[in-house]
């Protein structure tokens, strides 16, 4: 029975992981071949070659795209995270602005982004920020802030509240209770939200398209150019995608620590 209990989660996770990994493996294979072989059915195994990986860096400014995306996503998350944490805390603890403010903040994200594009373009044109990464960062902060705040509200509810009270009677100011207790205790939730914010910014396409120029184009904008009028450069796209999902590996150490931390917190509360 014990082995069953231990095996049960894997029974769910292994099929799920396969559903994710098998397509990615096939994509990896595509990235190591050419378009002709990629579409060949039944598949023919040719010797893998790294030409596509070389080409995305030489024939396309892939490194620039990657760096632009990384810096935009990191920066916008770094700016949005504290702002959203404070917003969420004010909502959860002090009910600032009440339900109307909360809902209207969320509502701001219900408009299809396409209708936001024209006024936003005008704003950045007027501010002289067009074609800059700053513009995209600002737009992404605006885009992510409401979601982050909403996600975090839930993490400030429940038992964190009492811990803050304990801090308050221990002599903490409101802000200290927030900063020294609520934030660290809600950390797993906040980090999960930050991770999602990073990803949303990493993938955001429309604002990046409208607001960036040649030198500041992000990965989504760059990758979309591989879908050309003369067909999809599928092998290049696969190679580019393989490199583009690298940040997950870069996040590995951080994730590992976060996961363990998340666990130990859960054990207590």
């Amino acid at each position: 029975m014990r082995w069953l209990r231990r095996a049960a989660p894997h029974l769910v996770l292994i099929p799920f992981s396969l559903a994710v990994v098998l397509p990615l493996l096939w994509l990896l294979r595509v990235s190591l071949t050419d378009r002709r072989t990629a579409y060949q059915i039944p598949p023919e195994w040719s010797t893998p070659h790294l030409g596509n990986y070389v080409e995305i860096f030489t024939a396309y400014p892939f490194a620039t795209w990657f760096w632009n995306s990384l810096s935009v996503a990191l920066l916008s998350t770094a700016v949005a995270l504290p702002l959203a944490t404070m917003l969420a805390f004010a909502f959860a603890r002090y009910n600032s602005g009440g339900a109307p403010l909360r809902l209207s903040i969320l509502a701001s994200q219900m408009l299809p982004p396409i209708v936001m594009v024209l006024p936003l373009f005008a704003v950045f044109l007027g501010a002289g920020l067009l074609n800059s990464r700053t513009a995209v960062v600002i737009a992404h902060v605006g885009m992510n802030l409401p979601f982050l705040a909403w996600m975090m509200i839930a993490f400030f509810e429940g038992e964190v509240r009492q811990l803050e009270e304990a801090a308050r009677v221990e002599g903490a100011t409101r802000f200290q209770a927030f900063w020294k207790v609520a934030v660290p205790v809600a950390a797993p939730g906040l980090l999960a939200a930050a991770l999602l914010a990073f990803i949303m910014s990493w993938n955001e396409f429309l604002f990046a398209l409208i607001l960036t120029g040649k030198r500041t184009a992000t990965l989504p904008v760059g990758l979309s150019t591989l879908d050309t009028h003369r067909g999809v450069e599928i092998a290049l796209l696969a190679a580019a995608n393989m490199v583009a999902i690298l940040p997950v590996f870069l996040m590995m150490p951080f994730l590992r620590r976060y996961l363990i931390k998340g666990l130990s917190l859960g054990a207590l509360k």
Partner: protein
Amino acid sequence: MKKFLLASSMLIASAFGAEAQTINILMESVPDTRYVQEMLPEFKEKTGIDVQLEVVNYAEMHTKLVPQLVAPEGSYDVIIVDFYWVGEFTKAGWLQPLDERIQADEFPVDNYIPSIMDLTGKVDGTTLMLPFYNYAMGLTYRKDLLEDPKHQEAFKAKYGRDLKVPTEWPEYLDQVKYFSEDAGIEGFKGVVNQGQRPDPISMEWSNYLFANGGRYYDPETWQPTLATPEGIAALTQYRDSIQKYGPIGAANFSFDDAFNVAAQGKAYSYLTFNMFRPVYDDPASSQVVGKMEIAPVPGGGMNGSWGWAIPKSSPDPDAAWEFIKFIESPEIAKKRALLGGAATQKQIYEDPELIEKFSYYPQLGELLAYAQNFPVFTYTPEFVDVLGRELSLAVADGKDPKEALEQVDKDFAELLRKDGKLQ
């Protein structure tokens, strides 16, 4: 005078050691863009002007361009315009007329193939663009199978005519049927179609329409004419192509999906843009190297092209013109064509050096000469959207062809009225 100004401004710029003059161009990610890229060092050497090509995907180009064009001063000195957008861009007044500059510099505009100049050059007598490259559609087919005596014999026996490059539409339809049903090749189809909404299906179906002698509208009155026997026949044939003779799934194929079927050697024919022709001979993309050829669509295929333009919001129109003049000069146009570019000037299709290099060049020239146009007006993109929707409904969702086309006529008329074309 302009030359002088340009020259003196360059002089000043260099005298003060300022950064070199730069112009920005928004382009699409196609091979022709790459060929333009290769000409840039020469341009820089000649004029000292740096050219920055910003490349985006076709679908995003319009979205990205419009805010720039609406702005009082945008980021782009030069843009390229798809024939789809010509009506819209001219109606909105976003493009600068080029006639004065053409006259001043005696630019040889007569070189352009007239049908293409009509599409992305002159609008109501004013030259707003110079054609950049064309993407007229042709019939690509399996030359090796067509010339195979075995198939020639079998085809003749069954259909009572010779198996040859089709010059009549019914001839082609018979070939499609033959290769799907009678040729006896496992998993092989007579045709592959691009049935996805809205542009792939609309552009491809246009060939069927023209081939059946149909047309979009009465050129005298702008009255839509799709729900006619010709139109209905075209749509019925098209539906049969997809459902009976084409590979499974063609009702949602983009041109890429469809091309790959042809390039994998799984279909006899594919009506597509002429720029795909060289790709069949690229071993990295194709299993049918040397086996595909292109021919004009019987009845005249669908035309398409891009043009160079200087937007009103251009920060530096003079430098922009310098660039257009350079890149479209006969000498550079030939160089681009030699790299594989889809030329728009007549003399290139007659150039022995090019015919030597690309065996299919005469056919391309012929194809362009007979190509027919799409209705070009302010709301062309929206018209294509409507057309694509109704065609797709008829092909994939069982809508009656006649009903579908009546709906198109109705919406088309409304758009024409909105544009003032139709009273």
